[in-house]
């Protein structure tokens, strides 16, 4: 891939528009189920089908979720007015989308990246999702299709659109912004935030300029980006396209472009005739939303701990490496980790287990069990292999580590028993013992293996080595 954006003094400018579907029970403006995977056109009513005469009534939980996200992004929550965005498209049953325009719910906030950098948030507003259009024909794509079919099950599902300021300067920042936003959304439990399944959708406004310039140049909006990886690729492609145009003395046209994952390029979406004129105006079927001070205070007071704060807590307490901290927070295991540590689990061991052995989830494992298990391991009552095996069982069926160790026969073998075994081996294998004592470490494995064999693998390797070393120095 062409790396031009990193040389020649070009600066990348990106603003992101992230749409997230809200996990409400019902749709934004009607009581139809907000649910997927059903037969087409079964989660619909006159309102979300846009039938003549139907009227929208806004879902209070969707509004609450939007305000929660706004506060989590340090936005001001304002009196807001819904507006109609007018354009013809068959997946929009009314041929206008109810959104918010000049008076959105949330304005002017910021998002802090794990690196400590902040990206400004311009607004986060509420709007309705469209239906789903399937293109029928050999290509399966919109171009070259013979006809299309429309399912309105998704029409009217609540969305929040979070619009960043054009303050993102690198592809890494763009990706980090999306994952951090995702983390916040998950912490608030307002969406399942799955990018691949479309419950988070990212559009990137990309432009470039020469370093030192103050004004922004023409931007293009890139749609149809379905993963963090393609977000990076799409931004890089588009930036290079702009640089190429400028170098040829041309300029990009402000337009919406679509990312083609297979071709690895963006494509122009529409003819010039379709120059956007959405004729926004206040939605006369809805009344303004004007949250009280008390509502906003309540939201602030009930705000769950957000990823940045949680990372900070975990890092302060354990001193483990930042990437592990980020991972645990992302997996939502940080609170559990802190609980285990509070119950006496050694931080680095706790984090090690959570990162390496518990990536699939915690199941029936309790914090107390993990704390005890780490302590048993630490006291050499069980080996690390045994610990790993026990974790699998504890996740599956719960229980206490002590009982489980007994059940599995993972009883600690007394130190003197191992000493006896080692002494027996020394007598039986005097040649090898001589070699060990003269510094041939290769035979160390032989002795350890023999002890393991005799104890069916239940002896602690560390302890065997310790005894071997004691015996050789005292010889």
């Amino acid at each position, binding site marked *: 891939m062409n790396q031009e954006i990193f040389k020649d003094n070009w600066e990348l400018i990106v603003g992101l528009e992230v749409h997230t579907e809200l996990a409400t029970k019902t749709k934004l403006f009607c009581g139809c189920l907000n649910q997927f995977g059903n037969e087409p056109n079964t989660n619909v009513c006159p309102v979300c089908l846009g*039938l*003549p005469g139907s009227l929208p009534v806004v879902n209070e939980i969707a509004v609450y979720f939007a305000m929660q996200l706004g506060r989590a992004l340090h936005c001001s929550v304002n009196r807001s007015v819904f507006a109609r965005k007018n354009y013809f498209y068959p997946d929009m049953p*009314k041929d206008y989308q109810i959104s918010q325009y000049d008076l959105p719910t949330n304005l002017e906030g910021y998002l802090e990246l794990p690196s400590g950098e902040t990206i400004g948030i311009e607004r986060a507003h509420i709007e309705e999702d469209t239906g789903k259009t399937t293109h029928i024909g050999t290509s399966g794509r919109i171009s070259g299709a013979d006809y299309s079919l429309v399912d309105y099950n998704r029409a009217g599902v609540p969305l929040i659109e979070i619009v960043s300021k054009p303050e993102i300067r690198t592809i890494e920042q763009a990706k980090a912004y999306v994952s951090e936003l995702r983390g916040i959304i998950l912490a608030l439990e307002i969406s399942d935030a799955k990018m691949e399944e479309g419950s988070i959708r990212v559009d990137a406004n990309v432009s470039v300029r020469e370093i030192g310039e103050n004004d922004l140049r023409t931007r293009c909006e890139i749609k149809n980006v379905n993963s963090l990886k393609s977000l990076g690729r799409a931004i890089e492609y588009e930036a290079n396209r702009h640089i190429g145009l400028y170098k040829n003395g041309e300029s990009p046209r402000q337009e919406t472009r679509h990312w083609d994952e297979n071709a690895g390029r963006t494509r122009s979406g529409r003819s010039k005739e379709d120059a956007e*004129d959405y*004729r926004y105006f206040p939605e006369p079927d809805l*009344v303004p939303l004007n949250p009280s001070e008390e509502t906003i205070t309540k939201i602030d007071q009930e705000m769950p701990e957000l990823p940045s704060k949680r990372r900070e807590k975990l890092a302060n307490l354990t001193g483990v490496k930042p990437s592990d901290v980020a991972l645990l927070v992302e997996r939502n295991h940080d609170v559990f980790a802190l609980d285990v540590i509070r119950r006496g689990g050694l931080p680095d061991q706790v984090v090690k287990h959570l990162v390496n052995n518990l990536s699939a989830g915690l199941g029936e494992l309790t914090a107390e069990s993990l704390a005890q298990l780490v302590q048993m391991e630490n006291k050499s009552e069980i080996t690390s292999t045994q610990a790993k095996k026990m974790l699998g069982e504890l996740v599956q069926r719960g229980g206490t580590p002590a009982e489980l160790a007994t059940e599995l026969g993972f009883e600690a073998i007394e130190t003197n028993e191992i000493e006896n075994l080692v002494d027996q081996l020394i007598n039986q294998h005097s040649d090898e013992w001589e070699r060990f004592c003269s510094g041939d470490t290769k035979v160390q494995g032989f002795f350890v293996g023999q002890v393991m064999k005799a104890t069916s693998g239940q002896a602690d390797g560390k302890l065997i080595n310790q005894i071997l070393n004691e015996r050789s120095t005292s010889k």
Partner: protein
Amino acid sequence: MSSMVPDQYQSASEIAELVTTGEISAIEILERHLNHIEQYEKDVHAFNLVTIDEARAAAEETDKLIAKGERVGPLAGVPVAVKDNLCTEGIPTTASSKILEGWKPPYDATVVKKLKEAGATIVGKTNLDEFAMGSSTENSAFGPTRNPHDLSCVPGGSSGGSAAAVAAGFAPIAIGSDTGGSIRQPASLCGVVGVKPTYGGVSRYGLLAFASSLDQVGPFATSVKDAAIVHEVIGGYDPLDSTSIKQTSNSFLEVLDKDISTLKVGVISELMGGIDGITREVIEQANKAVSVLSAAGAQVEEISLPAALYCLSAYYLIAPAEASSNLSRYDGVRYGLRIDGANLNEMNVNTRTEGFGDEVKRRIMLGTYALSAGYYDAYYGKALKVRRLLAENFAALYKEYDVLLSPTSPCTAFKLGEKVSDPMTMYVNDVCTIPSNLVGHPAISIPFGHGQDGMPIGVQILAPPMKEPVMYQVAHTLEMAAQ
């Protein structure tokens, strides 16, 4: 002049009482009205559809309930005609547009539901100007409605079918919608009572939207009392309409017979000669109404509503703007007409070009223009400010006056075809009624005398929001005097 108007109307309240007490059956009442419709409908064309079977079933159901001694509603057995822009489950609802011809909604409008619950017998869907855009009912894709007082004249509009149905005695009650005068103006032209309730007082759920911030559903009746009864039935909070008002008003009937001697009435000078185009005979009748109210002890004064001068302009920017968006959904995808095309865009264009009439197209384009980039502030934005100005005018007046009075329509019913070629001439018909819509206030038109042509003239009483009781009270006083 060929009049189809019966010598005497039977009131809805009388019918309901006779039916409820078992003196006459609902089916008998219905058959009598169906006979009347059968006889005169071909001349008047008040209906897009007479729902004979459904009406008979409903009337029989009412009779069964009464036979069983069960409680029936205040409109038991009362035939009601419903404007064809209100959704009726399984019964075609067309807004008199080719684009919706034959469309059967899967649900009832809230108003329709309430009428049924009140025991009413819905007899059919009445004609209107396409999507309620017009003042003569000539803009119907299914042919014009004629004024029962003189078949060569229009009934007014857009609820011309509803007004004509009541005037012709096809039904004692009809339901209309009023966006800029679409109930009151045809009521005036047809000599019946027509009410535009407070915005938010009656649910709009199931009303095919023309201009959402102005539309309001209301009754036609042959008396103020009947109108108030029906208004109480169809009104009230509806959780399906976000713009529905939660607070409930007092009963509209309580003060109907109370004397008006403590009331102050303002007469809008701008609509009594201040603005051109309001005929002398109409103003004369309004002045007679003033005398009646003075004689009844009310304090009547001429007042000024300066913003009235700009209402027509503001209205013809705001209403088309909202309409341009409301009517986008008629695109040939989900219901109604489709005229095929080589691709989606062509299909959309073919369908809408073929499906909409000229007046609808004109307003869609006007509204699209008023909202489009570069013109929004000059047109739509400015119109919204006029609206505020008007609201402030009204608020100041209502600090001092209980109700305001003006003519309803600038003239009596005009001839079919007389005004169709010039939209602006047609639009002036709404000059007296539009102010109430812009601010969402209630207003009523009641018949008050006739013009030199013998055609009915109406007088309008305007009241502050949710103050319908006093509006009905004053209207009732005038009605008594007119009889």
